[in-house]
């Protein structure tokens, strides 16, 4: 897989079908699916347990806005990912072009997905920091790989934004 920036576009080329599939899963992975731990991580309390009135107002007025914000980001990413739904041979490598102006939406969607996956799997800090973990052998390993892969993309986008 190669990743570079060209004329206002972040281009991921030579993308093998496995990684392309992981990218396709970003919008679905960003959805808490009603899992309480994931929902609570995405919509966290604005206070440390006190200020119950503020918490109630937050749920009524702020949470719906945040929900719209997150949904808008995943919709943008879903649109960009349609490039991977072509008629190429299923095992051929793919190319994905992300307009630079969609960078913020990608950062948000990747972050949502990483947080939701981590919350659903209850990954520990040690697991998340173990970058030399053995190859994928279980669904849990795959999920951890997904979190790290999305993190790598986030790092690249952040570096591009800085430059």
């Amino acid at each position, binding site marked *: 897989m190669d990743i570079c920036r060209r004329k206002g576009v972040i281009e991921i080329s030579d993308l093998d079908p496995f990684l392309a599939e992981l990218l396709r899963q970003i919008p679905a992975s960003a959805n808490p699916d009603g899992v309480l731990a994931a929902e609570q991580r995405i919509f966290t*309390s604005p206070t440390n347990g*006190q200020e119950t009135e503020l918490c109630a107002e937050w749920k009524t007025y702020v949470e719906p806005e945040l929900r719209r914000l997150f949904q808008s980001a995943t919709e943008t990413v879903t649109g960009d990912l349609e490039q991977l739904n072509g008629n190429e041979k299923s095992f051929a490598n793919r190319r994905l072009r992300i307009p630079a102006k969609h960078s913020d939406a990608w950062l948000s969607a990747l972050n949502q997905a990483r947080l939701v996956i981590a919350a659903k799997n209850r990954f520990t800090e040690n697991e998340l920091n173990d970058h030399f973990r053995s190859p994928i052998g279980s669904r849990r390993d795959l999920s951890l790989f997904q979190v790290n892969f999305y993190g790598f993309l986030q790092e690249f986008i952040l570096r591009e934004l800085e430059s």
Partner: protein
Amino acid sequence: MSCGPWRDSACLAQIQEIEGITPSSNEKAGTVTTAEPTIEKETRSEDELDLPWQVVVHNDPVNLMSYVTMVFQRVFGYPREKAERHMLEVHHNGRSILWNGLREPAELYVQQLHGYLLLATIEKAA
């Protein structure tokens, strides 16, 4: 008791009361009256008296350090060095106070930070 030719203000008020003359009709009659000064009281909202509130960001093992730094720069307008200092404080100490001040802007900052999916709370300073 007569007022005589030199009418003082108490006397003028008495005449106005008897004759039902309002200040506006008085103006038309050619005399000058001054309106009572309005004394404005300086008020302070509850929030202003209720200082200070803190915006606190808590550690999260998932969010990338570079991402958190970028968010601090964007939300608070901090230079990179200051944003990094706060990010490292969150990373090492579990939390960092990013901002102090009135409750309303503090809430807005927390809302923005939640928009970037950081763990942020508003807390009253001890």
